[in-house]
Structures are given as structure tokens and as C-alpha cells.
């Protein structure tokens, strides 16, 4: 049975060292190696890896794969999801064996897998760009809106030879980057340079690229929010660095305190760690908070003062549900403070997977890289070029997301209706689920100001914790497994995102369709009641 190790907060400091070697040119050939060997450490593996592969004479066994691979974890698609998939398969043949008749995946921000519809205009343009012969046919005008046809032509004219099947420039097609830069400018009221844009297959590869640049050894630390989206912990582990946690304050709506940042920075320094960057997710994942502008200014100041790269994960920038909060990009905030390219190194990540467009499967996104010297930018370009380019369809979609239909365009009305329909529904679902969770015994749940998740805190009774321990499972995982088996609802235990030790959470998306929400609330409520009945102290 597949089993991903879902751990508690692990200290990433004791890893296999990777000492980089100086070298001359091009390919590092065998002949250039110096003669002193690195001592091979004998115990690289976790004690909780039960047993080793029996075929240990083979080269790629568990004993001999990169220990950073073994170390990294990604709970969003981990243990609970595997169980759920097995249940789902079994449901098809054993319908009556379960107290529910479907699995509802609330573990992952994957809107279109839960019946959210794509934005029509975007897909019209993509279809026309996929099969350009359509543009030569008269019948096409009867099937597609006029402005989608016009936009397809515009995009194709920006692609050399109109060849959507060709590798593009490694940063992405120039004309599309121009459109994105224009979109950023419209959003922030400040100019953006298309040469600062690096288009990637989703935002995640961009994060990996930056970790690769920043991390040379486990002495390099990256400040990450706790709770965090586990891409960060996994990526840091894969690249052999150290995650330096800073705790968000649940009591104050997951606020970010500069004093906490300072404390963690000093703590890391005292352990010999050079902190290189600060990752901020705004709006937050899993926590959903939208930072106040003041908070953002403090963060920018902190990074500037401490010489840290600011990694601003802004993929949920279009998901804000509360009237008292607004999204402000970190670039806008920094520039409004008078900090320019020479003052702060900032990488801002955006994706087509979230927002109201939810185009996860297309894999599109970009990072906007500002405040780096040209020799560093060349290195970023070089790493991007090894993979040649990101997928063209995703690039096109990213440009559409950043420059959607405008008032007056033929598709504007339907576009706005679709967009607002989705966003207002998300806001309603966020509220409904939050209220329902707060009614449950021992559960408190901060509101989802943005993003796509709720992250309730469960005050688990001692008996439950003991039962979990007996089952050799983390308490929140124990709860989530029980929830799954009783209701078919799939959530991710808080330990997958890390949390203040001794507290327990789970992350649930707000994405099931609105008509399913009442049933979900009922099942959840019933389950929780019976769980508490069983384990109440």
C-alpha cells in the first residue's frame, strides 16, 4: 500500500551535505575532480522507514536514492488521499458498504474537478489558437464570439510563424509578456517590465527555480510561514536547504508579527544558518488571511534591512471575499514606500490555477523578478532555458488572465457574469462552511478572507489523542481518517502544513458546488458529534 510519510515538524538541518566544488567550464568532467573524498555517511534515512527494499543489489533502491527525495513530503496528495482513492474505487462495486455514496475531495484547490466551469472567452481563444485553421473558415464566426476571434489573431501575430507548437523564448512569448506587464501595470498603477517576467508551468516551477538559486547547502535558510503550503517545505528539502519557520498568530486572524520574524531570524543565525529569503503567501494558504498594507510595509522593511529576498506568493490575488480587506501586490507596496530596484529583491508569483479561472490542469503562471543584478538574472534565464520553455497554451491563458475582456468588448458582459458568479459563490461557501465549523464542539475557525480554504482548529480531547497515539498516527490525521471513513469527505490534516506544536487543524477547501454544501455540513456535523461522543473526556 502506498504510504507517504506525513510527519510532524521535522528539523531539516541534519541532511546530507552537498558541498559545491569550484570548477572551470562547461561540463564538469571526471578528470577535473580533486582527489579528496567526501565521507559517505552511513545513516541517512529516517527510522520510520520500515524495512528496506529486498532487492538492495539494484542501483535505484530506496537505500540509494537521493536522501533529499526521501525527506521531502507533500501532504496535499498524501496518505489520506490515497485511502480516499481506494475507497472511491471500492464504492463503484460495493455501493452499500459505506454510509456515503460519493467521495468529496476537499483536499486540493482544484476547482474544475468539482464542476466549476472555465471562463468561456478564455477557452474560445485557446481553442482557436489550438487549431488555427478554424480562423480561415466562415463557419467559425457562427461558433465563436467576434472578440475571441480578434484576440486569437492578435496572439497568433505575436507568435513567430503563428506556430503554437514551437518552443518559445525561454521566458515566454514576448507579446504575451507585454500583455502581462500591461495587466500588472493596470492592477498596480505602476509600470512593469516584460523582461522581468518568467513564464512557468504553473507557479510551482518558479518557486523551485528560486530555491535552487538561493540554496547551496543546509546552511541556507528560507523563512516560511507556519502554517504553510507544503510546496515550500518540500522544495527546500529537495534542494537541501533549511526551513526557518515563523509562526502566524491564529488568535489575531493569522496575523504576521515582525517581532516573530526577528526572533526566528536571530534563532537561525545562532544556529549558523544564513537566512536568504522570506516567503510570504498572500492571500494565505492554508490560512486564508489577507495581509493589511501596514503589515506588508513592515515585511518589506524587514527584508530590506536584513538583506532578504522577498518571495511573494500571490496566486490567490483574485480570491478576496471580505469587504474590509483588499489585495495589494508587494511590488506596489514596496514602490509606494519609495523602494526601487536597488533597494529590494522581490519575486512575485502568479498562477492561472486559482482566482476565478481555476485552470489548474493547464499549468500556467509566471514570476516577476525585480531587484536583482543582471548577472543573477542571467542565471535565472539559464536555468529556465534548460527546460526550454513553459507550455504555450498555459502562456496564452496567463496573458488572458492578466488582460481579460474590457467594458465594451462583445464578451465583457458574459465574462463579468461568469467571474462574479464564481467569486460570489466562493464567498458564500466560505462563509457557510466557516459558520458551520464554528458551531462544532471544540472547533474554532478563522474566517477565510481570501484563497480557497478553511483551516479550523480542533481542540481534540485527550482520549482522542491517546487513541491516535495507539494507532501510531498524528492526532489530526486520526481525525481526518475517521472523517473520511464516516462521510467520504477528504481533507488534509494540519500537520501537512505544520502548526504550533500541540495544536491540531485540518484544511478543507471551499470548492464543492454550492448545492452540495448543505449535505457536507450535515455529514460533517453528524460525524463530529459522534466523534466527540466517543472521545469526550
Amino acid at each position, binding site marked *: 500500500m502506498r504510504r507517504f510519510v506525513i510527519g510532524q515538524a521535522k528539523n531539516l538541518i541534519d541532511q546530507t551535505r552537498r558541498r559545491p566544488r569550484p570548477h572551470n567550464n562547461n561540463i564538469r568532467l571526471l578528470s577535473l575532480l580533486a582527489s579528496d573524498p567526501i565521507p559517505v555517511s552511513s545513516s541517512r534515512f529516517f527510522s520510520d522507514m520500515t524495512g528496506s527494499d529486498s532487492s538492495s543489489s539494484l542501483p535505484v533502491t530506496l537505500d540509494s536514492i537521493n536522501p533529499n527525495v526521501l525527506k521531502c513530503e507533500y501532504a496535499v496528495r498524501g496518505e489520506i488521499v490515497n485511502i480516499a482513492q481506494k475507497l472511491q474505487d471500492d464504492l463503484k462495486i460495493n455501493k452499500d458498504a459505506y454510509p456515503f455514496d460519493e467521495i468529496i475531495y476537499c483536499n486540493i484547490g482544484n476547482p474544475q474537478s468539482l464542476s466549476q466551469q472555465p471562463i468561456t472567452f478564455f477557452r474560445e481563444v485557446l481553442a482557436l489558437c489550438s487549431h488555427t485553421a478554424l480562423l480561415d473558415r466562415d463557419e467559425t464566426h457562427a461558433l465563436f464570439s467576434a472578440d475571441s476571434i480578434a484576440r486569437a489573431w492578435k496572439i497568433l501575430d505575436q507568435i513567430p510563424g503563428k506556430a503554437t507548437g514551437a518552443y518559445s523564448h525561454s521566458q515566454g512569448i514576448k507579446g504575451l509578456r507585454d500583455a502581462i506587464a500591461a495587466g500588472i501595470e493596470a492592477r498596480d498603477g505602476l509600470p512593469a517590465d516584460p523582461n522581468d517576467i518568467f513564464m512557468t508551468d504553473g507557479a510551482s516551477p518558479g518557486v523551485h527555480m528560486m530555491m535552487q538559486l538561493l540554496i547551496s547547502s543546509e546552511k541556507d535558510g528560507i523563512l516560511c510561514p507556519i502554517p504553510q503550503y507544503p510546496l515550500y517545505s518540500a522544495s527546500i528539502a529537495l534542494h537541501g536547504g533549511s526551513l526557518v519557520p515563523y509562526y502566524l498568530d491564529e488568535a489575531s486572524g493569522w496575523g504576521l508579527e515582525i517581532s516573530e520574524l526577528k526572533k526566528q531570524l536571530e534563532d537561525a543565525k545562532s544556529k549558523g544558518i544564513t537566512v536568504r529569503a522570506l516567503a510570504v503567501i498572500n492571500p494565505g494558504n492554508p490560512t486564508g488571511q489577507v495581509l493589511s498594507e501596514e503589515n506588508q510595509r513592515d515585511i518589506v522593511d524587514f*527584508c530590506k534591512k536584513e538583506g532578504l529576498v522577498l518571495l511573494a506568493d500571490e496566486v490567490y490575488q483574485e480570491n478576496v471575499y471580505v469587504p474590509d480587506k483588499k489585495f495589494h501586490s508587494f511590488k506596489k507596496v514596496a514602490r509606494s514606500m519609495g523602494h526601487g530596484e536597488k533597494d529590494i529583491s522581490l519575486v512575485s508569483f502568479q498562477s492561472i490555477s486559482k482566482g476565478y479561472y481555476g485552470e489548474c490542469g493547464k499549468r500556467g503562471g509566471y514570476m516577476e523578478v525585480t531587484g*536583482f543584478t543582471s548577472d543573477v538574472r542571467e542565471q535565472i534565464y539559464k536555468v529556465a532555458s534548460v527546460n526550454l520553455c513553459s507550455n504555450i497554451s498555459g502562456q496564452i491563458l496567463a496573458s488572458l488572465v492578466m488582460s481579460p475582456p474590457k467594458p465594451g468588448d462583445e464578451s465583457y458582459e458574459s465574462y463579468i457574469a461568469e467571474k462574479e458568479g464564481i467569486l460570489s459563490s466562493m464567498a458564500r461557501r466560505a462563509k457557510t462552511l466557516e459558520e458551520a465549523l464554528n458551531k462544532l464542539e471544540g472547533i474554532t475557525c478563522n474566517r477565510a478572507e481570501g484563497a480557497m480554504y478553511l483551516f479550523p482548529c480542533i481542540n481534540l480531547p485527550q482520549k482522542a489523542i491517546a487513541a491516535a497515539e495507539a494507532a501510531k498516527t498524528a492526532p489530526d490525521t486520526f481525525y481526518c481518517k475517521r472523517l473520511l471513513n464516516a462521510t467520504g469527505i477528504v481533507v488534509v490534516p494540519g500537520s501537512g502544513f505544520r502548526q504550533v506544536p500541540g495544536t491540531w487543524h485540518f484544511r478543507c477547501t471551499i470548492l464543492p458546488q454550492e448545492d452540495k454544501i448543505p449535505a457536507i455540513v450535515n455529514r460533517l456535523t453528524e460525524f463530529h458529534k459522534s466523534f466527540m461522543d466517543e472521545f469526550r473526556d
Partner: protein
Amino acid sequence: MSLKALDYESLNENVKNCQYAVRGELYLRASELQKEGKKIIFTNVGNPHALGQKPLTFPRQVVALCQAPFLLDNPNVGMIFPADAIARAKHYLSLTSGGLGAYSDSRGLPGVRKEVAEFIQRRDGYPSDPELIFLTDGASKGVMQILNCIIRNQKDGILVPVPQYPLYSATISLLGGTLVPYYLEETDNWGLDVNNLRQSVAQARSQGITVRAMVIINPGNPTGQCLSEANLREILKFCCDERLVLLGDEVYQQNIYQDERPFISSKKVLMDMGAPLSKEVQLISFHTVSKGYWGECGQRGGYFEMTNIPPRTVEEIYKVASIALSPNVSAQIFMGLMVSPPKPGDISYDQFVRESKGILESLRRRARIMTDGFNSCKNVVCNFTEGAMYSFPQIKLPPKAIQAAKQAGKVPDVFYCLKLLEATGISTVPGSGFGQKEGVFHLRTTILPAEEEMPEIMESFKKFNDEFMSQYGDNFGYSRM
């Protein structure tokens, strides 16, 4: 005074050390010249559609329908899409869990992986397990994922052919491993001699390197050679004896331009060899939608198939794939279409065959035109392009040219290629980007420019080369291999 957060000095050394010439100095210079208005012929990368090759019609029709499923509800859709494209679009949409916009399984859509397994089975005559097939955003991503699993530190060595496609050297660099070169024999049609392999491994081990894996690129890039069955058997036996994982880069398996050595997959040969080898040798095979006669580079679609990899290791590879959530779904559909194209009797079959054959036959002709064109130059020797998409002529540079290069601070083949670029607009990649024997120089060009433009391009090259040789050469003294 603020500290500089990410100075060049503090960058990860592995990043600084990695090189990828395909989009390196020559390409950047060519792009500059293009901006200045010069006509550039980009033959630096295997990017067929960028040089006028048209996409195949059927897959584009299917994917267009998948992009905009509301078209399928339109009663008029049959007027501009053939029925089999419509049926196929419905089929692939039914394999997804929400269309192209939903993350799929991190290994790729199970239905598509099943189609890939069926393709492999038809091709090789042996069963293939979809659970051991992972779809990726291009074959390159798959290569990077696998090497990332294998390489622990710089004592881990990976056997790589020289010349090689610099994805391998760049990735090994980035991951902090060591490239262990084995030289292909230019005089023997870029043949692979197992003795070279043994020598390379022995030398590596004497320097404390643990050789973990061996890369073969078949058909070869940049060299184009197709490995014989006998050669593949030797290689597999060698990997078994030396306990190496074999990484079989087979992305050019559709691009074969001679009939003496058709493509045989490493997997087929391994299975043919029977137990114990067929149960012991660890093999990972890579394929893509970017090459062949499809040339759909921009889709970023590929897969790898694992053979004899232990289940726990497969789980770990799955785990790492899950961090990237999923490969892009459109490309997965392209992959499905590539492995299960229109069949005889399908409405689109004739057109599909016509388009595919047209492309392949033209590539075969262009391989010949280019090889002959290069060989007609006195100081150029060019092995025939048996497969893949490239020509890799050896340019014999006279001592004066090498001197001039040194003075200009350039490696000799870079110097030559830059001059070629400035004079003719032909953008190639210098052989040093792929590795070559000391003192021997090459350049890599693709065979992809349109057939009607080939003669002119070869003329242009020849003219430049003649002028270069009269500037720098004397009749007797050019470098020999």
C-alpha cells in the same frame, strides 16, 4: 545601507556551473541580430514548427474541441470538425475529472497512461504496466526528476555519451553530480564501443566515483546514429554487470532515415534477452510529443516508463511528482493521440497518413541534402544523419583560425559559428556545447529548415566556409582528428 540579498557570489554554485549551449551564447547573439533586423535561420534547436513544419491536423482538431467543450453541444460542430475528432475529444474529456482545467493524477491521466502502455506493447510485443508510466511536462522534466532521485552528491557519476544533448550535463551540474563521459567513435559512424564504456567506468571508480547510471540517446543527439540490436544487447549486459540504471532517451524513435537499422526500443531488447537480465536490469525509457513527425515542442508533453524499479522507489518518484501536482492536461491528450493515432477506416486516417509520411519523407531527403552539402566542403566531414533531427559536421579548423579564436577569447568552434552567424544568419550550436574530443571541432545544425530553402542554405554555408578557409587557411595545415 542594505545588504544585497542575492549577489552573484552567493548563488548556488551548481547553478553557476551548469551550461546549456542550445540556448546559450550563439542563440543570444542570433536573437540580438534578429532584433537589429537581420534575417536569422534558427537551426540551434529541434523546433520543427518554428521552421514552417505544419502541425498534424487531427490532434489539433481534437484538442481544440477539448479546450472548448461547449462546442460539442453546438449542433453545427459537425460542419467544421470531422466525426472522429469529435468522438475522440469526447473520449479524452471523459478520461479527465473536469476537463483540461483540472489537475489530473500526478502521474498523468490513468486512461492516457493505459493508451501509452498499449502502444508500448504493440511496439515491443511485451506487456507494459500503466502504473509504471508517468507523464511529464516534456521528456526533459522526466529526465530531471529521475536524475534527481539518483544523484546524492558529487561522488555519484552518470555515464553520458560524448557528444551529448546538454540537458544531461546541465542537469547533472545542477544536481551536484559528476558526469562520466564515454566517447562515441566518429570514424565508426558515431558507434558505441563497450570498451570505451569499461574504460570510462574504471577511470571513474579509480577516482572514487560511484557510477550509478548510464544514458543512451537512441537515435542520437547530436550525432543521429541508430544503435544496432547487438549494440543494445552489449549495453544492457554491461549495465547488468556494472549495476547501472540504464536511462534510454528514445525521443527520436520516429525519426529514422535509413533502413539498415530501424528503431528497436531498449525495453524490447531487454525483454528479448530473457531472465535473469530481463528481471534485473533497471531501465527508464523516455519519449515525447516534441519530436518525431509531430514536432509539438510547445505543448510540453512526455513520459517515462520504468522497468525493474522497486515499488518503494516508484512511490518516492510519485511523491516528488505530486509536489508539481500534475503535468499539463492538453499535452497528455496529445500524448494519447500520438500513441493511438487514427486507424485505417477512420475518417481522418488518410489525411493523417499523408501528412505524417510527407513530413518523414521530407526529413529523410533533407538529412541527405545536408550531409552531402557539408561533405562537399573540403575541410568538412559529416556522418550521415541516420536518425533524430540534426547534422553534426566536423569542421577542420586551420591553426591560424584557432589562433584568431584564442585572441578573441573564444573557443575555436564558437568563433567559427559566430562568424558563420554574422555572415549568413545561420544560427547553429558549436560542438563544444555537446562535448567532443580534444582538438576536434563540430557544429550542430538541425535538418529542419524547409526543403525548398535547403539548397540555398547549404550554398550560403559553403560560400562562408570557403571565405573563412581562404582567410585563415593554408593548403596543408588544418587540424586533423
